[in-house]
């Protein structure tokens, strides 16, 4: 498995809608185009929300997984 180099981490664990998305939108502006950010969230709604956010903004959802109630999203800046 290829090693993923993440430039920025967002810890949105314990936060409800819309803060995981809001924090991600703010964080992705701090990385260069093509770079990756990793988001951790516990909001179950974020699974659908990150898909919608990625589709609308054009920032690619590279990876998503769940581990013990913590959702992990890796996104690439457009």
């Amino acid at each position, binding site marked *: 498995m290829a090693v993923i180099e993440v430039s920025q981490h967002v810890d949105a664990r*314990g*936060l*409800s*809608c*819309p*803060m995981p*998305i*809001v924090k*991600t*939108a*703010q964080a992705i502006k701090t990385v260069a185009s093509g770079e990756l950010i990793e988001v951790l969230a516990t*909001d179950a709604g974020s699974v659908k929300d990150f898909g*919608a*956010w990625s589709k*609308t*903004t054009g920032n690619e959802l590279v990876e998503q997984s769940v581990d013990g109630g913590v959702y992990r999203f890796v996104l690439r800046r457009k």
Partner: protein
Amino acid sequence: MTTETPPIVDPIAEAIAIADKWTEPQPAPEAEPAAAKDLLIIDYSGDLEKVWATLILATTGAAMGVKTRVFVTFWDLQVFVKDSKRITGETWMQKAMSFMQRPGVSHRKLSKMNFMGMGPWMMGVLAKKYGVASPKELLEAAQAMGVEFMPCQMTMDMFGLKPEEMIEGMGEPVGAATVIGLMTENSVPLFI
């Protein structure tokens, strides 16, 4: 003597001939994606739950790269008065209005189950427990992400509100024509 072949009169053969010529209807060519739309929230109510909804949608709009504007009018104007301001207005009637409804984003009442402030207090406790950002936090995030808050000039006049009594970073006061203009241009309107 030539023999002419009689024309085909077999109905089945005829049906096959028609069917052979039949072409499947082609799907319409993919429509051009519509131009990105702006979001325009008309925030009329100053009730806690509706202010909350407005600010959640506004921050999310901005986070999704959608140009988001909020038209701040009527009861909602008091939400954008500084929290520290207790009484606003010039005349006794305007002052009495602000006395009856305390200004500021942190002093909102619920439209139902307010119970002299018990309802909003319980809401606050629940929000904290479940990691829901408060209206004040959402307002700050919205401003940081470039949501434009446009106060209604007419209501400001009627309530005797001065621009310096409002929070920092408010947009220019506007009127209904600006709102209608935005709606007919490129904005999805929401009335809350």
